[in-house]
């Protein structure tokens, strides 16, 4: 929640702020309480009752009537004068003294009419608006300091904040009073004030932005409104209401608003009534969401005010390449390869910069510190261009250091410049351009992607960085470059160009700042796509893109998401629709392939029955199945730690007991397909050098096998088969993956593993497990001994510690193998069904297969071979000999021979 106002409210020593007692209290004049401030002791000095509210309205009407009467009178005098003019024989008589001194009544009216006009001007300036401007509105820093200096003197006086409330805000206070009156209550409470605020026009905008339908809050709020004690008139404002109204004034003043409006009343009512916070929270709107939405509404007002100021200042800026001192000269070549950002800003094409004040100060400081050029270093999407555009706007407003005064910000199109292909021509062009810039003397160069001058682009070997560096050295002009941290290290830092540039780091934006940027930019997207954003959509776009989209940075990636979500919403539901959090989630799902939407009822059923689903393919191994199912449920209910993979499992056990099968069935059941799994055979990574195959060789843009698989498909199962065979160096790599959920590939990209289910399988300790199971040792004991003794020599303890669960798969029993035999035989049936044939196996036949395929050492593997030899081979013969037709039934008999039952002829 945004900062609450902590100043102490002072109660009147006579009436103690009691609402009823204060009505007649002479000491405080009815205000009851006050808040010390630089303006004086803030009090609510207005009476709110039927008479006061009606009188306020009547007063406004009387004023309007009075002014209209005066204007009509003035017009009548003018009309009389014109009538006199029309009656003149010769209009030239007007210029004679005779005309003016003839004592015509119309001339008398004319002069008195002018006098009346003076009075009308006075009335209109002084009496039209019944609201006072906040004391610090429109004051600059110096004026504010002078004002603040008189705070001590003013503190002795009461300061009536009610004079600064807009008509709309007064309407809200009046409605709160009427609500309490209609309910026959003894006083107006904060809840009434809140209810009145959300019923206003501002409240309607607020509720829409919040995504809260009025019907949803109506009943519980009405109930809360009834809870105040009833009592006879007069109905005073409660102590808390007065406090909220005073704080609304303090809030508006702090935010440099012109007046106190309904949004401030709304905010303070909400902040000062915990029950209202609880109510909205129970409806799914936490307090910080509510405060953010209020900020959103105020931000849009503020942007509008800023834009008005900007337009006035922009008129002073020249609309051509010439500066105001006229010292510049024409730059024809530069103009061909560049865009004038100050001109674009002047003409209103660049949007204001939101946040980033620290970075902007750093940039300006670097420029101010001397003849130093600057490079902005930040990941794609952090807002380097936005900072430069913000600088262009500040140059238009001339709110900048002297070094930038009366200059142009010109962005060179580097790809166009170097796309000639011929390095000689590109260098020649650059020199000519830099020469023009130096001679012109009023240009600050912008070089987006400065690394492309050092060959860090796709345009082949080209090195113009030295040329630029030499020119910068002469100090005839300043340049601001942008680049990514990786490109800076690789192409700029150690070059002479790097030494000439002051580095300013642009880090990724925090969540709250990114939300603010989205709020500020949402207006133009809404206008473009004719769809409106709810706060939940904005907030979700930032949260989800921060968590699931790692290729770019905030706020750019979140802006992309809301842009696409608005198009999606418009296409699905037509124009003037609302973009919801679900639309945003759908876009993020599409981009990341990670299910981020709220859990649907289908999915919820699937998750709750995951064990039985997995058991359809995996026989036995209950502990393993339960562990995997629980991990998936935790992940989907967002209960897991966000910075680790969904789960890290180590499956231990003999071969053929279902370790890989469980992974495959999880992929099939939950991830949609058996192939939705990155399977890595760790026996292929037995030497240390194979690490490059896994994460990519340094500088190789293709990346590594594992990192690329996860980058392309971050929501997946990463199956590390036979992990004990991998080189220890490679296992160290996975320590970080299991702990932090990320891995840096050869190119320097950080790959996100937080949506991966990491399953490592191992046959280590197989002999021990089989021996112990044969002896009948309980599985818990087998596992403990295995961890403490058997695995010690194979895996390092810190590696084993990183697993969420180490699951020991039991060797299969004869019974398990029988069930597996049934599964396999059923699969044969499914394959034959595709060919239009039916298949049936006798129980004894399956039992026979299970007996033949059972081997405690190799689990279910021999069974597959037995079925292949005894059943599949015979089937192949039958099909090739055409001994079986479509619709026929093949029966597997007890002696494992096949019998074909021909289908009855079609009648």
């Amino acid at each position, binding site marked *: 929640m945004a900062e609450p106002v902590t100043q102490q409210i002072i109660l009147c020593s006579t009436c103690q702020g009691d609402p009823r007692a204060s009505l007649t209290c002479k000491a405080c004049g009815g205000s009851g309480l006050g808040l010390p401030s630089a303006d004086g002791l803030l009090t609510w000095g207005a009476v709110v009752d039927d008479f006061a509210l009606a009188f306020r309205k009547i007063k406004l009407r009387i004023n309007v009537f009075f002014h209209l009467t005066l204007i009509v009178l003035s017009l009548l005098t003018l009309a009389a004068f014109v009538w006199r003019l029309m009656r003149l024989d010769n209009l030239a008589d007007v210029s004679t003294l005779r005309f003016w*001194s*003839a004592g015509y009544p119309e001339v008398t009216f004319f*002069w008195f009419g*002018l*006098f009346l006009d003076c*009075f009308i001007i*006075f009335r209109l*300036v002084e009496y039209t608006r019944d609201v006072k401007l906040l004391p610090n509105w429109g004051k600059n820093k110096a004026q504010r300091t002078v004002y603040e200096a008189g705070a001590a003197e003013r503190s002795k006086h009461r300061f009536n904040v009610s004079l600064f409330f807009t008509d709309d805000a007064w309407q809200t206070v009046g409605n709160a009073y009427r609500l309490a009156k209609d309910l026959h209550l003894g006083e107006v409470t904060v809840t009434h004030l809140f209810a009145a605020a959300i019923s206003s026009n501002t409240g309607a905008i607020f509720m829409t932005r919040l995504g809260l339908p009025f019907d949803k809050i109506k009943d519980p709020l009405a109930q809360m409104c009834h809870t105040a004690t009833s009592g006879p008139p007069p109905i005073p404002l409660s102590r808390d209401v007065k406090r909220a109204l005073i704080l609304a004034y303090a809030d508006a003043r702090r935010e440099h608003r012109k007046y106190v409006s309904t949004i401030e009343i709304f905010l303070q009512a909400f902040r000062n009534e915990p029950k209202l916070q609880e109510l909205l929270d129970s409806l799914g709107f936490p307090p910080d969401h509510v405060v953010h939405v209020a900020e959103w509404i105020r931000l849009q007002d503020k942007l509008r005010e800023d834009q008005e100021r900007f337009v006035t200042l922009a008129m002073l800026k020249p609309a051509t390449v010439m500066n105001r*001192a006229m010292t510049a000269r024409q730059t024809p070549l530069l103009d061909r390869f560049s865009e004038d950002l100050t001109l674009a800003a002047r003409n209103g094409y660049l949007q204001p910069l939101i946040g980033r004040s620290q970075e902007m100060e750093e940039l300006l400081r670097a420029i101010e510190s001397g003849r130093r050029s600057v490079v902005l270093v930040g990941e794609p999407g952090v807002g380097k261009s936005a900072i430069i555009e913000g600088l262009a706007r500040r140059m238009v407003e001339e709110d900048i250091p002297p070094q930038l005064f009366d200059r142009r910000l010109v962005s060179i199109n580097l790809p166009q410049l170097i796309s000639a292909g011929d390095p000689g021509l590109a260098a020649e062009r650059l020199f000519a351009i830099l020469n023009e810039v130096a001679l012109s003397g009023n240009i600050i160069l912008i070089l987006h992607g400065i690394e492309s001058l050092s060959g860090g682009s796709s345009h082949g070997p080209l090195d113009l960085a030295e040329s630029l560096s030499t020119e910068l050295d002469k100090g005839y002009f300043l340049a601001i470059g942008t680049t990514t941290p990786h490109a800076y290290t690789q192409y700029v830092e150690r070059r002479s160009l790097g030494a000439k540039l002051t580095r300013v780091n642009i880090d990724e934006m925090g969540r709250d700042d990114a939300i603010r940027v989205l709020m500020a930019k949402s207006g133009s997207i809404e206008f473009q796509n004719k769809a409106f954003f709810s706060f939940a959509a904005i907030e979700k776009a930032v949260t989800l893109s921060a968590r699931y989209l790692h290729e770019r940075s905030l706020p750019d990636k979140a802006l992309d998401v809301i842009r696409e979500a608005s198009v999606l919403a418009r296409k699905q539901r037509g124009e003037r629709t609302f973009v919801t959090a679900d639309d945003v989630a759908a876009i993020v799902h599409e981009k990341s392939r990670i299910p981020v939407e709220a859990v649907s009822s289908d999915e919820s059923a699937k998750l709750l029955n995951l064990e039985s689903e997995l058991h359809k393919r995996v026989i036995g191994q209950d502990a393993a199945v339960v562990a995997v199912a629980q991990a998936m449920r935790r992940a989907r209910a967002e209960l897991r730690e966000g910075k680790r993979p969904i789960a890290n499992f180590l499956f231990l056990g003999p071969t053929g007991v279902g370790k890989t099968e469980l992974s495959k069935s999880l992929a099939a059941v939950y991830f949609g397909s058996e192939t939705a799994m990155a399977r890595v055979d760790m026996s292929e990574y037995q030497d240390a050098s194979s690490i490059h195959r896994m994460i990519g060789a340094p500088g190789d843009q293709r990346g590594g096998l594992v990192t690329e698989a996860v980058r392309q498909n971050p929501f997946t199962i990463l199956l590390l088969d036979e992990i004990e065979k991998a080189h220890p160096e490679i296992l160290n790599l996975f320590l970080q993956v299991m702990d932090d959920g990320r891995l840096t590939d050869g190119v320097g990209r950080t790959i996100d593993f937080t949506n991966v289910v990491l399953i490592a399988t191992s046959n280590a300790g197989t002999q021990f497990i089989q021996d112990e199971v044969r002896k009948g040792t309980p599985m818990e004991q087998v596992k403990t001994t295995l961890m403490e003794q058997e695995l010690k020599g194979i895996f390092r303890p810190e590696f084993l510690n990183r697993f969420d669960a180490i699951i020991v798969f039991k060797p299969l029993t004869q019974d398990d193998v029988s069930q597996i035999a049934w599964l396999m035989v059923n699969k044969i049936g499914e394959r034959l069904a595709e060919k239009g044939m039916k298949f049936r196996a006798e129980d004894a036949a399956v039992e026979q297969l299970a007996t033949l395929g059972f081997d405690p050492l190799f689990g279910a593997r021999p069974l597959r071979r037995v079925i292949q030899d005894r059943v599949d081979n015979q089937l192949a013969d039958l099909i090739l000999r055409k001994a079986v037709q479509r619709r026929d039934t093949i029966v597997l008999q007890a002696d494992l021979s096949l019998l074909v039952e021909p289908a009855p002829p079609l009648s």
Partner: protein
Amino acid sequence: MNNRVGAVAHLLFIDLLGSIAWFPVWWYTKGLSLIASNAIAALTYRSQSYSFRIWIRNFFVPMYGQFDIWGRIISVLMRFVVLVGRSIAITVEAVIYALGIVLWALAPPLTFLLGSQSGVLGAILTP
């Protein structure tokens, strides 16, 4: 009740009738300062658009990047002429604004006097 009487009295005697008495005082205090500050703001904006400070600071800097001797000489002359021209322009504007302020100050008594004079003459001359 006192508040109600006070409010009605305020409306009648201060807001409506009182404004007639308040009018001349306002005209020569708040009103005059308002008109003067508006005139000053308009002149400041205009002087900013004329870029006097920038032109004086760059008086000897050649225009259009012509750094040769003739470029410099012509530039200084040109700057001088332009500065004189703009100074005249802003002076004229300042005079117009000043006249406006004087007119503001004279308007109520002048119109009232002329109106009264015309009224009196009308009464005398009309048979």
